[in-house]
């Protein structure tokens, strides 16, 4: 109250002094006489005079008088604070930390507007100043994202409501049907197609193993990142023409990796996911001679992609590169190893040759589909390298990818025709395939490698792609129903 009052007083005084100067007939606004307005103020200020110069220390008296006004309030506040802080030592630290955060906010540092008690606790436990600042920055950025998302959602909702209000009411309270000469292609049809392909991959597709045994080597943050990347891996694979049969090996039932995956997917969706998860090691699931561990530290270069092999990718995110970790594992199990031919195709002299897991599966899907490293390595981020070496096309001959062969001669595999006949185009069939559990289809390696099945007729294919492109906010198929 007092503060408000005092502020008003000063504003008022300021206005008067300004208007006072303006009424002076001298014309130049900043004449020394103009500043004698400060003298009016200085009568109640404690500062000594500085003669006829601009009163440079006026701000001090302003701030001081504010303080004096606050003091009566401050007494009460202090007592409240004391009551809080006498609880315990830890409580005191938390209060101090919270205070520090609020002051950092005032000092213009990147700090979240609101901070939960749990975050304060985490913050207080961090030992160094820089780690505290980093954590606060992370919280602030996260808060910003959340805020933006919320705004977006609200805007969208407002738009929807507006459009609903604008259009004339129909009898069923539905928006009017759009008139189009194209048959509408519904999202869940596409999902069924994906489900169908996934199920086919689980029965006949090439297995791809993700080795989930690196939990101990990752920080919680890195684990969260790798789980995000695994989600992207799965979704990429699901949308592919010819998906891999994903195996998540070494996935401990009560480990943090599985917990996070289940949490992110939701238990139902996780159960329905068309992948194989197992706590067993990959060497127990597949014969040793078929496994090839893909690791950057390997001395061997993967020149041709072999569809009869089972490739293993270590599902690890290491922000500070832990070189040789997956390679050591492969050596221990005496597995064949290989690395991607990055040096052979890309001008990539500077910077760590690391790839994320989703980049990895995109590369693998592309090499499997096209057999051309040029196309596959297009998924390496452009910012990391200086482009391809010229004339690398001739080098990658002899691709063994299945798709080309299969397209040329679809009659070679009777199941191919069968597969496309059963494809659930619009009919809503094939929905039962979604329920295929991961447990029943684990021994795909026992069969010979079969040509990939899912074929899409060209017209339909372009159409599905179009719908995929236009509708980006589609919910994943497993979250529907």
């Amino acid at each position, binding site marked *: 109250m007092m503060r408000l009052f005092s502020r008003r007083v000063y504003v008022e005084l300021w206005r008067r002094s300004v208007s006072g100067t303006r009424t002076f007939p001298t014309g130049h606004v900043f004449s020394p006489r103009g500043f004698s307005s400060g003298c009016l103020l200085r009568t109640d200020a404690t500062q000594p005079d500085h003669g006829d110069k*601009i009163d440079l220390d006026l701000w001090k008296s302003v*701030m001081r008088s504010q303080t004096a006004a606050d003091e009566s309030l401050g007494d009460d506040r202090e007592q409240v604070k004391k009551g809080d802080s006498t609880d315990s030592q830890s409580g005191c630290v938390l209060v101090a930390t919270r205070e520090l955060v609020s*002051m950092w906010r005032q000092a213009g540092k990147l700090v979240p507007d609101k901070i939960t008690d749990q975050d304060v606790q985490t913050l207080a436990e961090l030992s160094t100043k820089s780690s505290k600042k980093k954590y606060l920055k992370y919280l602030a950025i996260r808060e910003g994202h959340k805020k933006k998302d919320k705004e977006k959602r609200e805007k969208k909702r407002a738009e929807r409501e507006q459009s609903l209000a604008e259009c004339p009411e129909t009898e069923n309270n539905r928006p009017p049907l759009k008139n189009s000469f194209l048959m509408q292609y519904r999202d869940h049809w596409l999902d069924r197609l994906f489900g169908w392909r996934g199920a086919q991959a689980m029965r006949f597709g090439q297995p791809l193993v993700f080795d989930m045994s690196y939990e101990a080597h990752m920080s919680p943050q890195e684990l969260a990142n790798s789980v995000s990347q695994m989600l992207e891996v799965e979704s990429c694979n699901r949308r592919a023409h010819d998906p891999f049969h994903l195996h998540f090996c070494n996935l401990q039932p009560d480990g943090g990796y599985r917990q996070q995956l289940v949490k992110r997917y939701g238990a139902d969706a996780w159960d329905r996911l068309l992948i194989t998860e197992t706590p067993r090691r990959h060497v127990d699931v597949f014969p040793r001679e078929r496994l090839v561990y893909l690791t950057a530290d390997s001395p061997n270069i993967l020149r041709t992609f072999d569809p009869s092999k089972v490739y293993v990718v270590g599902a690890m995110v290491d922000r500070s590169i832990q070189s040789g*970790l997956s390679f050591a594992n492969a*050596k221990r199990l005496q597995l064949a190893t290989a690395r991607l031919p990055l040096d052979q195709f890309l001008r990539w002299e500077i910077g760590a040759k690391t790839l994320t897991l989703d980049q990895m599966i995109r590369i693998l899907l592309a090499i499997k589909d096209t057999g051309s490293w040029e196309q596959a390595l297009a998924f390496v981020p452009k910012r990391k390298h200086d482009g391809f070496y010229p004339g690398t096309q001739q080098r990658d001959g002899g691709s063994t990818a299945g798709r080309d062969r299969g397209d040329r001669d679809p009659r070679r595999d009777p199941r191919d025709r069968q597969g496309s006949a059963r494809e659930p185009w619009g009919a809503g069939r094939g929905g039962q395939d979604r329920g295929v559990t991961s447990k029943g289809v684990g021994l795909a390696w026992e069969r010979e490698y079969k040509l990939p099945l899912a074929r899409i007729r060209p017209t339909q294919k372009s159409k599905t792609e179009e719908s995929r492109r236009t509708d980006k906010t589609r919910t994943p198929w497993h979250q529907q129903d």
Partner: protein
Amino acid sequence: MGAALLFKARLCLNVLSHKSGIINQGKICARTMCTKGNKPGERKSSPRKTDKTIRQTESFKVRQMPSFPTSVFAAGNAKRTTELLKRKTTLPSLEQEDAAWDQPRRRGFKTDGLVAPERPLSPTEWKKLKEAPCSPERFDVHMMTLLFKTGAELDIAKSLLTFVALDTGTMSYQLLLQYLTLCVKGGHNAEALDCYQIMRGAFPALETGASSLFIKAFSRTQSWREALPILREMKKVISPSPRNYSDIISGALLHGDSATAWQLYDEVMEEGMSPLPDTWRALFEGGARGGEGEEGNFSRAEYGERLLGVLGYMRDNQVYPQQSLADAIKTWFQSLPGHHWRGEWTTVTPKGVCKCCGSELESIQLTPEEYQHLKDRVMADIIQGKDVFHKTTPEELESFKAFVQGKPLFDVVVDGLNVANIVKGRQSEMLLAVVCELEQQGLTALVLGRKHMLRPSVAWDRRNMGLIQKKAHCFFTENTSEDDPFLLYATLHSGNHCRFMSRDLMRDHKACLPDALTRRLFFKWQRGHQLVIHGTVTVGRRVHFQMISPYDTIVQSTGASWHIPYDDSIDRSSYEVPQSWLCLTNKH
């Protein structure tokens, strides 16, 4: 006459070899040529001299070149080399780009449209500036940043504050903090103290930035004690930085309270932080002033004891003082009453004799206990580590151990791939030349390599490899294994006289060691046992090695003298040691 002819022929050869692509690490090469050109006689004689000293101490010899200043461990060597290489490779266009990069980049606040005023302005003028179309949103903060950047006078900032106070009736914490920074930077301590009163009153607490600034400001004034409660307050939330402590310690010493200063110094040590050089400098300068001010202060003797403790800390932690700190140390020693310390800036001969007082420096050889400790740690932490498969396999390690057991003790262990790769394309020739040299000197050598070297190719000639295997013991690891750990194992296992030959500085292996003490031991051992090829290697001619320094570069004392290596330039990399010394002698 003959000598002159020889010399000319050698020069020609040198030029030829240079042209034909045998170019070694730029500077070293250039230096060799230089010594050859100027003093051909000296080059011949000096290695022999050093041979003698080594023979005296260790009963076996490796021909070496005088080490300094070309040794890989000499201060500034790495920087010189990189600069030379950069100059060789950089194109003019790239240089221009570099120049563009060097220009200060604007970060954070945008102050594009703003111009800092030349003199204090009145509120009305400020208002005009603020309402100008180009002024940014948070005018006050941006303007204060600009004032700070341009190093404007304090009065201008004050007038800005006055304007803000009158305009809005209050001031943001950020603005005051920036003003405070300006005050502290300009050394306006009284103003900073005023600011303290105001900010204390206006805000419920201070954050760390303001606290640090206040500590700095208070420590410069009479009321330095005020900084202590601020420090205590900081401790509640974070551990104060060594800089904060350093400020208060120098404040305390400046005002003659050495007891508090040392207490704070002890606190820094207890926290496990390493004190700043400025702290030490303040302590030594305080000692030199001989502040016998207040009650409860240390006596001169006790103070001296503690300063010697600081020197001990430097020795234990391999700290090399900067020039300014070395100055302070020298002044302190010379100020000691009752003694006649004399300090000189000097260097050390390659044999390890101080050029100033003529005394011999400590040897670089480890004591048997230290050696054993290092050997155990290297085996456990570098070779095996957390996962044996990381660098090798258990079977291979066992077979290597058996191999080493079955052979006589080696004199030199050669990192085959590292030595061979000096010249790309003719690796086996290089390796053979080095092995021949070692054989001529009658040394038992072990060459470590990888199995792919045995596959005949242009680089790995079958005949050369056969000769190498005849002349030296050889062990080839799997292609998937690292060879450096084997190198370290074999060298350490063969005893203290055994050296290893590699250009690798082994920093990644040193980093595997868990504690600082072992790392220091490793570094000391490395400096005493690493052979590095000097200059170029030409087939059919003798190979020269950089000399291994026989003395340890570390703070050391014999009671009547102190020798302190110090940094006289800022070019030293962390794995290099300084070449200049402060020699302090006590003459009675």
